[in-house]
């Protein structure tokens, strides 16, 4: 992959990663539900150094009208990075990467949202990346799912997302920014925890078939951990602090 620019040790001989984590340990995750006044639903997440805000509007009227579907509602999703969210200032106009990620996130949420309950309407999901670290699309999805639940949009299941990857020839959970740059593979995954379906999976990097299976399983384990944090966020807002 080229000359290493830094001297970071991705995995030392004690199995500790460059940020002190073990191979199956995710970064710190914090989610708060209901943080915006005007949105129908909202959530804020900190996942490692990712800081992301998600807001949901709807179901509401579709404009322009020709986009409306007579049988079911439609879901629109916008993943957008703030100019100050990354090292080198990012142009505020949507890039092709953001457009693809918006689509992939929408398709990860659609299996869960019961759009057939709201024909001829739209549910808009707006995700703003305030600060980006590795795995921002998974963190964005985690916040979006909580925002949808906060808005009372009927869902068959929650959607929980987490990435796994290959770093120093080892499959690890939740890769951070350095591991993304210097590592060997990155696999973001989104999962519906009660229905057991994967609704987002992408891969950059090379994996043998055995590594692929291990990576999928590791990512799904990560999704289940994130689900507990999403549940806690909703319980805290709606049912009071110690309701579980």
């Amino acid at each position, binding site marked *: 992959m*080229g*000359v290493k*620019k830094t001297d970071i040790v991705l995995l030392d001989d004690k199995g500790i990663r460059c940020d002190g984590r073990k191979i199956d340990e995710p970064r710190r995750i914090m989610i708060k539900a209901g943080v915006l006044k005007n949105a129908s639903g909202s959530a804020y997440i900190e996942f490692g150094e990712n800081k992301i805000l998600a807001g949901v509007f709807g179901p509401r009227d579709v404009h322009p009208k020709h986009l409306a579907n007579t049988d079911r509602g439609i879901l629109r999703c916008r993943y957008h990075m703030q100019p100050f969210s990354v090292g080198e200032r990012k142009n505020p106009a949507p890039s*092709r*990467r953001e*457009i*693809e990620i*918006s*689509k*992939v996130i929408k*398709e990860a949420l*659609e*299996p869960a949202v019961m759009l057939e309950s709201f024909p001829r309407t739209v549910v808009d999901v707006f995700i703003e990346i305030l600060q980006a670290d590795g795995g921002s699309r998974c963190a964005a999805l985690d916040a979006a799912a909580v925002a949808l639940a906060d808005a009372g949009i009927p869902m068959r299941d929650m959607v929980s997302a987490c990435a796994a990857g290959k770093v120093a020839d080892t499959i690890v959970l939740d890769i951070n920014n350095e591991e993304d740059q210097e590592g060997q593979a990155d*696999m973001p995954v989104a999962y*519906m925890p009660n*229905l*057991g*379906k*994967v*609704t*987002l*999976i*992408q*891969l*950059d*990097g*090379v*994996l*043998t*078939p055995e590594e*692929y*299976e291990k990576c*999928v*399983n590791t990512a*799904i384990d990560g999704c289940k951990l994130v689900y507990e944090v999403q549940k806690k966020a909703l319980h805290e807002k709606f049912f009071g602090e110690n309701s579980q």
Partner: protein
Amino acid sequence: MSNILDELKKKKVTSLLNDGQRIDGRAFDEPRHLTIDVGVIPKAEGSARIRLGDTEVVCGVKIQPDKPFPDLGDRGIFICTAEILPLADPSVEPGPPNEEVIELARVVDRGIRESGMIDLTKLVLQKNKSVIGLFVDNSVTDYDGNLFDACSYAAVSSILSCRIPKWEIKDDAPSLVEGEYSEPPITTIPVSVTMGRIGNHVIVDPNADEWACMDARITITTNASGNICAIQKGGSNGFTQEQLFQCAKTSISTGAKIREIIKAQGK
């Protein structure tokens, strides 16, 4: 593609699948017939026209010197794009690319890039100053489903058959040496295999009718060593873990067969 499939056709596709059959008679893991013609655009440094069933893609490779990306002064440039031309289907409108086309281009690009197919370190003219850029542009001219694989096969075939001109450095800038060419530095041949899920059935290389009824799709790219180098799931539904593992196995075995067809292209 906003192909609004009529309900009757969708029922027909699904009930045939329930009986173990596909609407065009193929096996579930059988891709359509693939024909590859290379060198169809002599002015380009590489080109190919492919037909996958009734989907047709024309691809051209332009090779020219360029400035390297900052931080990547020791390697050449590879950029792969894809476009759906208005003549490919009545529903395509001319204009800036929509999210579907953007996803298509990025997935095709990643499949080839992540496999390391082209050894970019062999495309440097002056380190940190000038390198060789390979620009691979796909245009879909006829739509019948599965543009992901069609564009990928067209791009890979164009790259395999391209010829790289020779530049030498004169007065600190690249200068073309007429009539001299070299083979591209190829390390592996990536093959993408796209599978669609309709109900609980997973089918390889969906045609336009199947594409319109799909609940979800997954594109898996493998290299010649049987390893997986890129994955993209798309569509409004999901896959179970078992389905994901089965899709990987299918992409390796079907991919191997397609690799032979690509290698055998008229050379």
